[in-house]
Structure formats: C-alpha cells, structure tokens
C-alpha cells in the first residue's frame, strides 16, 4: 500500500508541472481511472480539460485518442467500420477511435443520442459489437467526456440514466491567482506535454487497479455508506442514489484509501470522493448537494 502512495505522489508531482493548481481534481481523476470508472468533466472551454486527459495518458504511457463530438457524428465514426477488400475478397474492419486506452470525448452533448449511446455502450461493456462481431477494447480503457454547461442550444444533454455510467463528474474551474501567474509565465502546455516522460507503465496501472480490491471495508464503514445512500432516497432528494452508484462510490473510496497508503477505507475517504461521485447522479441544481449530504449524515 505505501508503494501505491509513492507512485501516486510521483504522478501528482509530475502532473503539477503541466496542470498547475489542480492537484485535487487530478487525484480524483486518477482515482476514477484506477477504479475502472469513466470521467465526465463539465466545464468551460480552455480550463485544461484536454490537458488533463492527455496528461493521464502520457503519465502511464497509454495510447490517447480524441473524438470531437458534433451533431453529424455517426456511431461508425466512433466505433469503426468494415470495408470490402478486393484483394482478399473480404471485409476488413477499420477500428474506430474508441479502440485506444484513453479516449477524450469532447463536447459529448453535441452529438445525437445515437452516437452518444455508441460510446456509452462501449464504456459499459468495454467491448464493441460491429456488424455482429464483438471486439474487446484494450486494457486499461478510460473515457474522459467533456460537456459545456452553458451552451445548451442545439445540444442533446445526457439523460440521467447515461450520467449514471460516469463514475465521477468534475469541474476544473478557473485557476487561482498564483496558479494562473505560473501558467502565464511558463512554457507552452502542448510542448510540456510532449516532453513529459511516463512515470508508470500500463502494467503498473493494472496492478494498482487489482490492489484496490484488497482494501478492507469494515461493517462500520458499510453502515455509514448505507446511511448516506438511505438519506438520498428520502423525499428531500429528487433522485436517490442507485445500487450501482453505491458500488461505484465504495470502490472509488477503496482506491482513494489505496492512494493514501491505507489498507482500510475510512469515512474520510468516502467524504473525499463523494462530491465527485454523487452530484451528477442526484439531478439537483444545488452545486453543494454532496457537501450538504455529508453534513446531514452522522458517522455511526
């Protein structure tokens, strides 16, 4: 476990050189990645969404592809398609951009529901079925989708059922003064990114993912989680948390504990990852709903 903590520290230190002042978000994104989850980033353009996605791929030495979602995007543009090959007298499959380790689905709400669901199914199943043939996606597979919260005209917002498939939703937000100054003084981000060397191998990431399953969750902690889940199922909340959400939260908390070098999950771990994991699932306009939830439920 302490090894995991050191690895994470090295990644964070390295990432900090490029993505200034976003350490907490970076850690959450890392947690999401180690927990086999997918990430939804909801923010304005230009605050570093692409940089973050790129960073995560580079630091683990993973393949990275970007799909710009537009209203005329077709499922085949995401998944791939077969073309008849005259020489071999057969159809050959041209894998789509989804066949990679890290996918950045930019402005996912601009595409039609049909194209969206193609991606979302791939996220859930971690495999793609094209023309009756099932093809496994590479491991690890991690999707970072972004959506722009303000320009809702001509968009297809993700329905709640689809939102539930993202383990975490983050906002990056504007950098603070100090970070912005560093940013303005520093070099070009793209250049920095290209210079970045991988810190961990993909195999080490898979190892981290496996280690997360060893983290203990005691009955006392499960009590606390159940209290939290129960609380959201009261009439005060428009939508309660699903059992899938509960499983996701718990696993994410395991990863968080692992990243902090602990072999057991503490209430603090749950509290740390809760805002990221529940706010998009509770369908509430209140940005602080997760904080409120934490305050309302005493730790048993």
């Amino acid at each position, binding site marked *: 476990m302490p090894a995991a903590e050191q690895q994470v520290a090295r990644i964070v230190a390295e990432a900090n050189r490029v993505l200034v002042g976003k350490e907490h978000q970076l850690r959450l994104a890392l947690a999401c990645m180690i927990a086999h989850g997918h990430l939804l980033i909801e923010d304005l353009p230009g605050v570093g969404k692409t940089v973050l996605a790129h960073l995560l791929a580079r630091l683990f030495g993973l393949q990275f592809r970007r799909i710009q979602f537009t209203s005329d995007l077709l499922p085949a543009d995401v998944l791939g398609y077969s073309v008849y090959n005259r020489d071999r007298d057969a159809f050959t499959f041209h894998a789509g951009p989804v066949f990679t380790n890290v996918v950045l689905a930019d402005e996912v709400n601009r595409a039609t529901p049909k194209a969206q669901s193609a991606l979302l199914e791939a996220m859930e199943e971690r495999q793609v079925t094209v023309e009756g043939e099932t093809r496994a996606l590479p491991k690890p597979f991690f999707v970072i989708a972004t959506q722009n919260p303000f320009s809702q005209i001509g968009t297809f917002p993700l329905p709640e059922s689809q939102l539930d498939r993202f383990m975490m939703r983050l906002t990056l937000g504007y950098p603070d003064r100090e970070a912005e100054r560093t940013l303005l003084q520093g070099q070009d981000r793209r250049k920095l990114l290209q210079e970045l060397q991988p810190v961990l191998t993909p195999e080490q990431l898979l190892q981290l993912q496996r280690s997360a399953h060893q983290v203990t969750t*005691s009955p*006392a902690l499960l009590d606390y989680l159940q209290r939290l889940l129960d609380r959201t199922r009261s009439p005060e909340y428009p939508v309660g948390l699903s059992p899938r959400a509960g499983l996701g939260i718990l696993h994410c908390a395991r990863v968080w504990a692992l990243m902090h070098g602990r072999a057991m999950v*503490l*209430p603090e771990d749950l509290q740390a990852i809760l805002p990221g994991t529940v706010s998009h699932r509770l369908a509430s306009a209140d940005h602080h709903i997760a904080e409120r939830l934490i305050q309302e*439920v*005493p730790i048993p």
Partner: protein
Amino acid sequence: MTERLPVYCLAAAILWGYALHAPRLPIWISVVFVALCLLQWGMRRRPNRLIGYCLLGVAVGSIYGSYGYLFGREPGLALVPLLTVLKFRELRSHRDFQVLVMLGLFMVATHFIHAQGLYAALLTLPVILLLLAASVLLHGAPEPPRVRRALLLSARMWLAAVPFMIVGFVLFPRLPGPLWSIFQDPSTATTGLSNTMTPGSISQLSQSDAIAFRVKFHGNAPDPQQLYWRGPVFWYTNGNTWSAGRASPRAAIPQLRGTGAPPLIYTVTLEPSPHRRLFAIDIPAQVPEGATLSADLQLLTTRPIQQRTRYQLGSYTQYHISGAGPRELQRALQLPPGKHPGAVALARSWRAAGLSPRAIIERVLRLLREEDFTYTLSPQSTRGDSVDFLLFESREGFCGHYAAALAVLARAAGIPARIVTGYQGGTLNRVGNYYTIRQRDAHAWVEILDAERGWQRVDPTRVVAPERVQQGLEGLMPDTTLLGRDSEVHNLWTLLQDSLDAADNGWNQWVIGYDRDQQRQLLYSLGGQRATPWTFAVVLAGLAAVLFLGYLALLLHRQHRATDPTLRAYRRFVGKLARIGIHKHSAQGPLDFARQAAALCRQGSHIHAVTRLYIRIRYGDGQGSPMRLHRMVRGFSPRLR
C-alpha cells in the same frame, strides 16, 4: 400452537406447581388431576365441546365429592389446578398461552396460603422461572441451547425484579396480619399444651418435634436447669384429669419479688396455637403488651395466637411469691373424695407422725429418689387408681405422673399444691444463638405453698431422672443415631440442622413477621421520631419517582451508549476533548478530528495514537485490542496548548 417447546416448558411448570399443592389436597383431586393430564397428553385433536363440558363436570364433581361443598377457600384452591389442566385443551393462540402462564402464577400464589416458610418459598422459584422461560420461548426464539438460554434469561428477569419486590415489601402499607389469615379457622392451628392434663398426655407431646417457640436472650443465657417455661396451671383434679378449675374472680395477683440477679430479658417468637397463652420463664417480671397476668401467674392473651407472635419479656429465676388467699388455699387442697386411697393414707400417716410440711415434701422426694422409680416415656397402661398404681405398683412414669403423685401426696398431707405445666429446657441453636423449644420439651411440675417462702417450685422429675432436667429429653433417649452422639458426623449434622433452622427463623422474623410495628419502627429509624404516615407516603412516592427517573435515564443512556466497547472508548475520548472545547462534528471522520484536535492540544501524539488504534479496530481488519484502547483513553487527560 405449532411450537412444542414452550408448551412442554409450561406443562413442566404446571406439574411442579401442582406438586407443591398435592400433599395437602385430597387424594381424589390428585387422581383426577393425573387423569386429566394423561387425557390432554393423549388427545391429538381438539375434542368437541360436549366432552369438554363432561371433563369440567368430572373436575367439579371430584371437588364436591372430596370436600362436600364447593364455595370455600379449600375447594377453590383445588379447582385452580384442575381448571388449568383443562385450559390446555384450548391452547391455540398466544393469548391462551398467556392465560395459562397467569394461571400458573396464580397457582403458585395460592400455595402461600398454606405455607409461608423459607423453604416453601424457595420451592416456588423453579415454577416461576419455568413459567417465565415458557413465555420467553414463545415470544422470541433464542439460539440453541434454547431452554437453557430461556431459563437464564428468565432468571435474569427475576433478579431484576427483586429490588422492586424488596422496596414494595418494605414500604407498602402492611395489612394488620397476613392476608391469608383472614379465612383461617383457628382450630386448624397446630397443637400444643392442652388446657387439661392427664398423666399420659404429655408423653404424646414428647413424640412431636414441632416447634413451640424460639427464644433469644439479651445477654447471657441462663443455665438450662432454670429454664422452666410456665404454661397452664392446674388446681382441680377429678382423680385422673387435672384442669384449671374455676378461678375466683376476685383472686388477687400475688406480690412478686426477685430475690437474686436482675431479671433475664429475652424475646420469644411463638408459633401459632389454638390457645390464648404466652410462655415465660418462671416467673414473669413484666407483662407484654396485649397480655394479662392471671392470679396463678399465667400470661394470657385476649385472642388465640393465630399467627407467629413475638414478644419481649423479663423474668426472675429467683423469686418470692406472696401467699394465697383463703379461696386459693381451699382450691390448692382439693382432692376428689374416695380417690387415691393408698397415697392419701400414706400422706396422712406422715402427717400423723408429726412431720412438718417441708419434711413431708422431703420425704416424698426421698421416696422417689431412693425407691426404684424410673422415668419412661412409655409407662405401663394404668390399672386402677393412677397415682396409687404409680406409687405402689409400676413405679415408672413420665413427668406428668410424678407431678400428679406429688401434688396428691402434698394435698393429702394438708400442704397446698398446684400443678404447673409448660416446657423445660430447650435446644441451643449455635448458628443463630437462640433456643428452640419444641413440643417434646413439654413438662409438668408442682408448686407447693410454703408458709414463709410462698409458692415454691418442686420438680419431682428432677429427683427421679436428673438428666431430664439437666440435658433435656434427648439426654434420656436411647442413642439411636448410627454413629453415636459425639462423632464428627453427628456434630456436622447438628450444625446443618441448626443452620437450616436458623435460616427458617430468620425468614420468620424478618419476612413473615414483618408487620406494621416493624415497618413503623423502620420508618422511624429512617425518618426520626416525627415520621408519620405522610412521611411514609412521601418516601414511597419519592422512591417511585427516583426509580422512574432512573429508569428513564437508563433508557436515554442506553440510546447513546454504544454496545461496542471500541466505540464506547472512542466516544469517551471525544467527550474528554469536548470538555476542553474541542468538539467533533457528528459527520467528522476520526482522522480529520485527530488532525484538528492535535493542532489544538498538547498531547498530539497521544491523540494520533488513540485514533490509529481506533481506526484499526473499527475500520481495519479488526486486529487490535479494545481493552488497550480503553486503557489509552482512560489515561488521557487533554490540555490545550
């Protein structure tokens, strides 16, 4: 009722409960009870209503047949177990079950109408526990072993009820006399010394081990030889039976004077008897409340001693009683005409020889001592005149025989005499340090009126069989114990008997004998001399309020109090920090709180150590000792920086 176990438990309780009653119920009731039990056991299907009425008829009929009437205490008590068994037929719902449990408890309660002793009370305890266990088994199914767990739980419930029982017992207003004596017929009380004496009557009593009374001396107990417990005094004889005769209504109480040591002070606890008599060591120096002293120095009460009675007395063992009036003299010389010719002739011959009264008494005693007179509990049956037969033929008898003989001889010689019956001696209980006087200690002796010294006790038995007076009756009995009287085993046996009797005596004194007076005394000692019934009410209400508030507090505390020792220790830790102003939000995790507290507190490392251990036990793999956590928290006294 598909569950068998609670029903078996209930049935066991009912059977035990019946066994308590069985010895005093007519045999036919028991026969019917057993028959009904077997019938219930055998019947798989619920029989029809008609058979039910028939069985009820049999039950009621057997009671009527045994007692001859139906409406009364005894038939009513017999009806309870029979109806309880019949109720088993209707056992279908939980409600029926509860009714049976209540009936069982009622059956136990009725047992106390007849038996109030310590051991009787102890015998009812298993029934109560079994009934509670049956209820437990019915309502919640404990883990196996179910019966043992249910019994343990009911024992705990019973123990929890004990403090309430004690408070209720001590403080609840006492009724005058026990509740059950309301119905009691005095004639059913146990036997004792009778109001007449035929020479053989006392030897019947000598077979009885029943306790007459117990005595506790305040200060040193006197020599057993001085323990003459004065009872009925007999003046009149018809030649065979002695009785009190008709006392003169104007008979004055003689003047009493102690001539030796100050009076002995002692407390007597008298068993119930059909008579109106208290016993005192010869001679009583004072009269207990509610009793009167007769002219011949008997202590009499206005009503029969229906329940165990306790009184305190003082007695002179060396005394002077002033002489009698002419009417008493006449009564003390009465002889039936034509009876005891041999004895009368003998006495007259002494008188004619010019012997003084004292010399004549000496002569009689010498006769009894020197001639071959023996003391026996089973003398030959009397032929002819009882006194002459003893003196001139059988030469064997019991204290009654010798007392009668001495009295007749004295009267025939013109010396006023009367017979006093009572008890002599007693057995020291070494455990409780009191004397037990049993019916077999019954005794009879003679009082002679001496011209100068007044009434003087003369005990002819003492001359015939000195051991009777010195060692008690036991000294005279053949040694029938297997190992001899002085063996270790015998001593142990005596000790055991003494202990059991001492426990019983304590129970009688403090539980059965706890009456209004004792209650008042207790309250006086609690509340001082000014205690009134109002004090009493206030004490009771106050105690009830305290108990109620205590119970509420316990409930509230239970809610907050975690059952998990780890959590309990941690809450204590949090409480200690809260006392110095470091409060933990209910949603704050332990690590966060430790960081916050350590920043404010001098004992930062201790806080972290406690938190680490707590986290390890509560959220980790369960390793780590809650006891150690408890110790660490106990030794923790936080100070602000």
